[in-house]
């Protein structure tokens, strides 16, 4: 029993959560039900978008040679590199944490630090599918104003992060540790 627990220690939270959720439904404990409803909402968002991002990461890994990434969005890529990462981010969808694996892949393939952080910024709030929803709810003026103000700030953050991390031996891990 002890060794079993030790071996599956990392699943403890998930298991406890699942059991408590089941219990809440069984005895009609409303706060528990509400918490689990929140979970399903976030889970739906994750499961619709994140596996798709992992497919992109996988395809990237196999199909796009490092030399190409380095040339187009690497250290010397300039304005064209910025345009490319912003476009790449805009064509994707999902929560920000789904972009971390993509950032890892970009890093592995030799994208510049600046472009990786510009990518994360653009991914966080310029994704076309999300812009569509935003325009629907808040109107085109709102989206346009927000987007146009955001973009230069993301680019600025990219430059700041690059400067800050210049000689810091910066690495991105694959997230499995």
């Amino acid at each position, binding site marked *: 029993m002890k060794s079993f627990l030790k071996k599956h220690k990392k699943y403890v939270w998930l298991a406890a959560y699942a059991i408590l959720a089941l219990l809440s439904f069984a005895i009609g404990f409303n706060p528990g039900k509400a918490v*689990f409803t929140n979970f399903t909402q976030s889970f739906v968002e994750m499961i619709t978008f994140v596996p798709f991002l*992992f497919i992109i990461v996988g395809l990237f890994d196999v199909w796009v040679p490092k030399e190409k990434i380095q040339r187009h969005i690497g250290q010397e890529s300039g304005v064209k590199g910025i345009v490319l990462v912003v476009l790449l981010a805009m064509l994707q969808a999902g929560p920000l944490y789904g972009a971390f694996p993509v950032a890892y892949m970009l890093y592995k393939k030799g994208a510049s630090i600046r472009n990786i952080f510009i990518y994360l910024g653009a991914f*966080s709030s310029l994704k076309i599918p999300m812009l569509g929803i935003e325009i629907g709810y808040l109107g085109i003026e709102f989206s346009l104003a927000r987007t146009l103000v*955001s973009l230069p700030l993301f680019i600025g953050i990219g430059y700041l992060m690059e400067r800050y991390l210049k000689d810091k031996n910066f690495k991105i891990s694959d997230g499995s540790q």
Partner: protein
Amino acid sequence: MFKNVLLPFLNILILISLLLYIIPPSVISQYLGSGSGVLGFSIAALVGSVTLIPGFVSYPIAAGLIQQGASYAVVATFMTTLMMVGVVTLPLEIRYFGKTVAITRNALNFVAAVIIGLMVGIIL
């Protein structure tokens, strides 16, 4: 690769679900809808940074806030911090970028989000 990170992802979702129970969208609406001054603005920035609400839930909330009379600055700040700053997802971000970089990115994005909120408020 997806299998390796599925568990940390699920753990973060558990955290988010508990947090959203403590700070439910209805309470967020209540506080942000009425006060659009400095207090409303600060609450928007703070709550937006800490929580992580899926887009298809947060946009209806934002539209509701505007209807209730919240200013565009408050709504823009709330939406932008929601998207760009993730305190609750920090443990996950640290796995990829390391502690210092993850915190720095969030801090910079917080400042940017506040600027975006103010600018959008001025423009609209």
